């Protein structure tokens, strides 16, 4: 019987103790798994979201996030100039404003209002029904939440009142036709968003905001790559700030996302400490109960290495069993926690706090393996230093 088989039989000998150990490790392992998912989840999710928009560069007037800093003047001409760079495939100017869609109730529905300018470019949304708006026409695309709350559908006519400044305005409503229903990548679960061309947004805002944008979104040529496009745009428009997706993600990581990583690091350390203590206590109790047997085995010729291997294999079996259970438990817990955290206002629906990557599984495995080793150290020390003759004498006297 090898050490693993022997360890298995030792565990099965006291099924309640073994089950408690495995369940304890499963609970701790599930938390550990979730902390690992959380540590990188937002960053991975945000990176995926940025990449799914089809644009890999963002050009803004200052270092501030789009929509939070000053506007880019002459945005249409500048986006066209960027689009002509050899390293660039397409570029669009994007303006964020607000609008009240006068439908769905006496007060209408407040929406985020996006205006886009750019020729031959893909828009950063996906058409679900109907079609995209046609530039130059008073057409809008609306998201599902807006459609549901206003009862509008492709082909519907609607009046809307735009607002492009922070100050209160009483602009006259402007008529639009709904051309399609679209999914916007950065929408929150309850967010209401509509979009049209930049000139039409300017019209809805009173006609004075026709050529300013919050951000110019750029798609690099496939062969050129984002870094070449960043250099080209920075050379062309040195007064603007250019950020690749990777740089934007790095900024996120250095900014608010750092807290999630710090929290998960602290909680990971705490959960691992609990796991080590739990297994160490279980194995130590188990070893102390069997000192006589272990001493007898040593007297019968079992080497020190063999009895150490027995204890270590017990640790591996407890951690391995608990670790296996921890994966589905952790996944279920992550789904529940993600749902809770996504209720935070303003979080895009497509952003997740807990995101699985194969490397997470590798780190989880690595940490649990380290736990099994560290947890076994003290009971192994007991076994290694066990005085055979004295223990046999004590067992008889006891």
């Amino acid at each position: 019987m090898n050490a693993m088989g022997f360890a298995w039989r030792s565990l099965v000998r006291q099924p309640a103790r073994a089950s408690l150990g495995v369940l304890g490790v499963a609970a701790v392992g599930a938390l550990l798994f979730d902390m690992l998912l959380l540590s990188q989840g937002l960053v991975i999710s945000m990176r995926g979201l940025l990449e799914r928009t089809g644009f890999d560069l963002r050009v803004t007037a200052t270092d501030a996030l789009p929509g939070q800093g000053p506007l880019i003047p002459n945005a249409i001409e500048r986006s066209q100039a960027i689009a002509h760079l050899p390293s660039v495939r397409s570029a669009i100017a994007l303006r964020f404003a607000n609008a009240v869609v006068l439908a769905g109730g006496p007060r209408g529905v407040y929406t985020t209002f996006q205006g886009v300018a750019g020729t031959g470019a893909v828009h950063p949304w996906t058409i679900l029904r109907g079609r995209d708006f046609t530039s130059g026409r008073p057409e809008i695309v609306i998201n599902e939440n807006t459609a549901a709350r206003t009862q509008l559908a492709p082909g519907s006519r609607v009046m809307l009142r735009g607002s492009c400044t922070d100050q209160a305005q009483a602009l006259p409503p402007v008529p639009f036709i709904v051309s399609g229903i679209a999914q916007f990548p950065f929408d929150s679960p309850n967010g209401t968003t509509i979009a049209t061309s930049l000139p039409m947004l300017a019209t809805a805002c009173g006609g004075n905001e026709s050529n300013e944008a919050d951000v110019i979104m750029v798609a690099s040529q496939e062969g050129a790559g984002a870094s070449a496009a960043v250099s080209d745009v920075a050379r062309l428009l040195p007064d603007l700030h250019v950020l690749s997706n990777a740089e934007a993600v790095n900024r996120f990581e250095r900014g608010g996302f750092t807290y999630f990583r710090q929290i998960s690091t602290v909680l990971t350390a705490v959960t691992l400490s609990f796991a080590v203590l739990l297994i160490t206590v279980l194995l130590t109790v188990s070893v102390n109960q069997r000192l006589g047997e272990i001493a007898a085995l040593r007297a019968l010729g079992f080497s020190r290495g063999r009895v150490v291997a027995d204890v270590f294999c017990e640790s591996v079996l407890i951690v391995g069993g608990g670790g296996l259970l921890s994966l589905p438990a952790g996944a279920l817990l992550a789904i529940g926690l993600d749902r809770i955290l996504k209720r935070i206002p303003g979080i895009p629906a497509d952003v997740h706090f807990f995101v699985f990557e194969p490397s997470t599984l590798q780190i989880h495995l690595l940490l649990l393996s380290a736990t099994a080793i560290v947890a076994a150290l003290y009971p192994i020390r007991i076994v290694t230093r066990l005085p055979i003759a004295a223990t046999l004498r004590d067992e008889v006297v006891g």
Partner: protein
Amino acid sequence: MSTTNGHVIEARNISRVFPMSAGPVTAVADVSLEIRPGDHIAIRGPSGCGKSTLLHMLGCVEPPTAGTLLFRGDDVTKLSDRQRSLLRLRQIGFVFQRFFLLPMLTAAENVELPQSEANVPKAERRQRTQELLEYVGLAARAAHRPSELSGGEMQRVAIARALANNPGLLLADEPTGELDRATGEQIASLLDRVNADGTALVIVTHDPALAERSTRILSMRDGRIESELTSA
């Protein structure tokens, strides 16, 4: 170069001193002893006289702190822990007062365990285990766990386990200490048979009846061999 002189064990002036906080305690002092193949030796004496310590030294469990102990000509004090483990595994059998069978294993598995540790091929150890259980009269209880066996049966399994790797020396520490008189008699007869089949036997016992079955009776007091009685 090691010479055996035909002895299984040759102890020359061996002592065992335990360092204690109140000062060193001498458990065994200046004992010389030779054990030959087929010897049947009993060690007796009052509690604390050093019987078990001497047995453990003879069984290479703990080396002497002074003197020379040769096992088949090899100086035990010069062997590493690993080498002493191997020597015990292949050449020495132990029988304990409290049996120390592993409760999660069946009788057969307990007997098979030392063979497995000695890397005996599976088929061979199955065969040997079957033979040994038949030898101790427990073939029908092979699949039983220790909790399902009586004290005498457990000790018989322990003897079978001690004989698993066919040792030349069997050491038994109070083998009948936990058994009633009739069962103790059965175990004593079994040990006699083991000895008669060629295994040198050293028994530590308080039981005069068990000691008198031996051909050499060593009486110990204060860590020393006070006298040796030899019968034909």
